[in-house]
């Protein structure tokens, strides 16, 4: 029989690092490895676009990840590619959040009334086509190069960021909306209304800070999905354009050389994607378990 806890935990217990499972620690470690490669790698790996070795040489001391068909060092390219993929993923998630959080807040605040209905219908329409087909479609018709949009010029990289963001909006908005629906039921919201605080201040100043943490956790985990989606698009030649490396377009280039025996060309950059996605997924599981355990207490 477990004693029900009435008093708050002692201070020392609260300061102790959270107890995480071995799997969660593994996830954290993999994620740190990926971040190390993406953030520190490009600084000391040398130039990702210059020819520094032989054509398609296997891994060696000078080129730990081997070289590609244009004699470029694959460690430098993979590190730079990881950095680009990470940046694109973070920017895509950020863009998605910037649109989805206000939309979700408004929908949740007016839960069940017309602003909610309108926003939900738009989100459903966004989900009618799978993200990937939508992206294929947009990039298919605007081309893989720069697109002029009035005074704005969208590079292929910007387009990938926007597409990822648009694809994520429905998910982020739903999370925000459901958190807001719960929050609006709290007494303090009614009290604020009664004393005449303007609606904008209630939503932006009071509800938002309470709703944001679960949304941010979700968004953080979706960075893994974004890395995955970016690499798939670039793999098909529709995402980040060469000579700018990304994990996906390195793999795309590698396809033609796989059967010539250049296994390192596709295996190693692929493993880097894998390290990142496994890291995010394990960490997500761990966070989910921790939240569940918290909810039970």
């Amino acid at each position: 029989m477990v004693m029900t806890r009435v008093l708050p935990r002692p201070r020392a217990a609260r300061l102790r690092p959270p107890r995480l499972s071995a799997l969660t620690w593994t996830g954290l470690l993999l994620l740190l490895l990926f971040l190390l490669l993406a953030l520190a790698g490009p600084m000391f790996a040398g130039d990702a676009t210059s020819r520094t070795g032989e054509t398609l040489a296997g891994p060696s001391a000078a080129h730990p990840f081997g070289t590609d068909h244009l004699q470029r060092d694959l460690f430098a390219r993979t590190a730079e590619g990881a950095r680009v993929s990470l940046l694109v993923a973070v920017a895509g998630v950020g863009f998605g959040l910037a649109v989805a959080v206000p939309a979700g807040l408004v929908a949740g605040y007016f839960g069940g009334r017309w602003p909610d209905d309108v926003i939900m219908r738009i989100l459903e329409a966004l989900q009618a086509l799978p993200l990937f087909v939508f992206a294929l479609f947009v990039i298919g018709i605007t081309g893989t190069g720069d697109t002029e949009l009035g005074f704005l010029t969208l590079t292929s990289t910007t387009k990938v960021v926007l597409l990822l963001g648009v694809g994520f909006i429905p998910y982020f908005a739903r999370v925000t909306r459901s958190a807001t629906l719960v929050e609006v039921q709290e007494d303090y919201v009614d009290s604020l209304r009664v004393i005449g605080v303007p609606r904008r201040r209630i939503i932006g100043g009071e509800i938002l800070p309470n709703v944001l943490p679960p949304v941010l956790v979700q968004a953080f985990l979706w960075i893994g999905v974004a890395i995955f989606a970016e690499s798939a698009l670039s793999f098909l030649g529709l995402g980040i354009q060469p000579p700018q490396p990304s994990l996906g377009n390195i793999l795309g280039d590698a396809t033609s050389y796989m059967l010539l025996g250049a296994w390192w060309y596709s295996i190693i950059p692929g493993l880097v994607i894998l390290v990142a996605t496994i890291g995010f997924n394990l960490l997500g599981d761990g966070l989910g378990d921790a939240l569940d355990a918290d909810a039970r207490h």
Partner: protein
Amino acid sequence: MLRYVGRRVAGLALVLLIVLTLVFFMLRAAPGGPVDAYLGMNPTPEKRAEVEHRFGLDQPIWVQYVKFLGNLLSGDLGNSLFSDRPVSAIIGERLPVTLELSLAAFLFWIVVGLAAGALAARRRDSFTDGFVRVVSVIALSIPSFWLALVLVAVFGLFIKGVLPSSGWVPFTEDPLGNLRGVVLPAFALGLGSGAIIARTLRASMIETAQADYVSFARAMGLNERRILRDITLRNAIIPTATVIGLMLGVFVSGTVLVETVFNIPGIGQTIVGAFRQQDYPLAIACTLVTASVFLMANLVVDLLYFVLNPRIRAGFLNGTAR
């Protein structure tokens, strides 16, 4: 129930019409266009006018749109701008390939995913459970196109001749060769979804096992086998059905990638080609096919809830559910 189905089908048709209209106008608003792609560099104005006239692109856009909708209703999707063959014939050739591939992946991974999930949940916290958890996290993290590349390398370089690693043989020509050819792409296509199925089923079975009605059934003296089969599994399958429905959306993008790596002439490869060449009729038809498959799959999953859960069925019949 019938009214609900009718309303859903009408909604589906409306979404399809919106998607098609968007595709139609965005394709025409895009810079370049098929005439440029068709004629290559620096065409003479006469040649351009001739080609535009042949494709019907010299008419006002509204006329083109109305014609397009009229043709669509009569089942005529037009001819491909590049091969000049009817689009319906191209899709008729390509779609069965993608459907066979998806179906194979779907069936295999549903069985494996459900079995693994149920086994892990039943022996919770055992070695089997840990194994399923670790393997499924890794499996769902592997990008399908990278797995496909690795399979091509392994079966094309190191163990040659066991399974074909590229290309496609029609079933009518060589049934055995066709089935052998589907193994690797189907494996790569469905692995991630299989893992998600296993994880979802495991989690919802564990949650269901703690429900009061399960304790009640146990108190009533039902044996564990029946509790598992008739009560836990039956209730836990509902969230899993949702995931299986979402799987079809994953397949739509997955086939594009996997077909590219294995060089399989399915809808996925066709979509990429059609959008790249701005082959209007083919691109629109491919979008139509993809969107309908995806939307219908969602509808089927929603209807499956009726079959799976008596409570939802009752809710719809007495009007408490919307």
